[in-house]
């Protein structure tokens, strides 16, 4: 009987807990999958990195190819979706010279890519300068701002 009497109070308590946790801004998930530094025509399969297992179960890097074209290093990246729904992705290439120094740090933009269910898509990128020796790449989901209620 006393429980029913106290019910409004309990409800209030629950509500206040709910409100305290409201409107909390949670940083988005920005980890993904990528590769270590790869040289021209290097085999990539042993140099892949998985930082986000959820994304790795939906997507895998099926091919990385590189060649020299007009003195510049060109890279082809094939992404295969193993997920039935569309994925909103973004990818980034980074370029390094023969000593492993980054070229044009912070200037390589994230490019967005929509991958449909089970689709394989190939994207290409070109090194900005002729002295690029190695490259790395990274793929992640488009981060959205999350609000916790």
């Amino acid at each position, binding site marked *: 009987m006393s429980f029913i009497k106290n019910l409004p109070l309990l409800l209030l308590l629950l509500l206040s807990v709910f409100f305290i946790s409201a409107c909390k801004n949670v940083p988005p998930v920005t980890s993904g999958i990528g590769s270590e530094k790869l040289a021209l025509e290097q085999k990539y399969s042993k140099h892949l990195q998985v930082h986000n297992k959820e994304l790795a179960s939906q997507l895998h890097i099926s091919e990385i190819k590189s060649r020299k074209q007009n003195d510049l290093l060109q890279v082809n990246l094939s992404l295969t979706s193993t997920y039935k729904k569309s994925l909103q992705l973004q990818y980034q290439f980074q370029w390094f010279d023969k000593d492993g120094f980054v070229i044009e740090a912070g200037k390589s933009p994230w490019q967005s890519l929509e991958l449909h269910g089970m689709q394989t898509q190939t994207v290409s990128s*070109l090194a900005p300068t002729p002295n690029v020796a190695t490259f790395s790449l990274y793929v992640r989901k488009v981060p959205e701002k999350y609000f916790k209620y």
Partner: protein
Amino acid sequence: MNKLLVTATISLALIALGGCTNKSVVRYGDATAVETTDINFGSTDLQTIAGQMTDSLLLSPVVGTLTANTRPILFVESIKNKTSEHIDTESITDSISTKLLRSGKFRFVDMARVAAVQEQLEFQQNSGMVDASKAVAFGQQVGAQYMLYGNLASIVKSNKDKSDVYYKFTLRLMDLKSGLVEWADETEIRKTKEKMFISW
């Protein structure tokens, strides 16, 4: 009991009000991040266009032949903005010309600064303040061999739930001597905005 209830209600209301106030926070973001603030032309579009066009130009076999033994001299005419938005197209051409210049394949003359150069040369030649033997003489500059020009067009469609914008950017390289278009490419960008229903 009643007193307790009133106190609890008031404190709850205060918490609810305080917890959800709009606080604006300033922080530095990633300049290379994908930006989706609204559907209008943004930094990601600019970076995509500049990147794809430069890659395409540098990869084309024609450019491979042109740049085999020499670094051709280019000038950027302009990018005509045919969209319904106000877009700073000079910013796109700046990005493209900087990337091309940094690739080491091309050289550029800057037509936007001709007046300033002329003023400086006139100062050196005619002001009497510069050593005549060291002053830069008129008539020694090199002219451009190729012209880079293009268009940016858009198609915008929307209904009450969805808006869609399609950008098409065309860039061409013309040989000034023969008038032939040696290279051309276009790139497309599609952006959509949909009303999202609240999801948990």
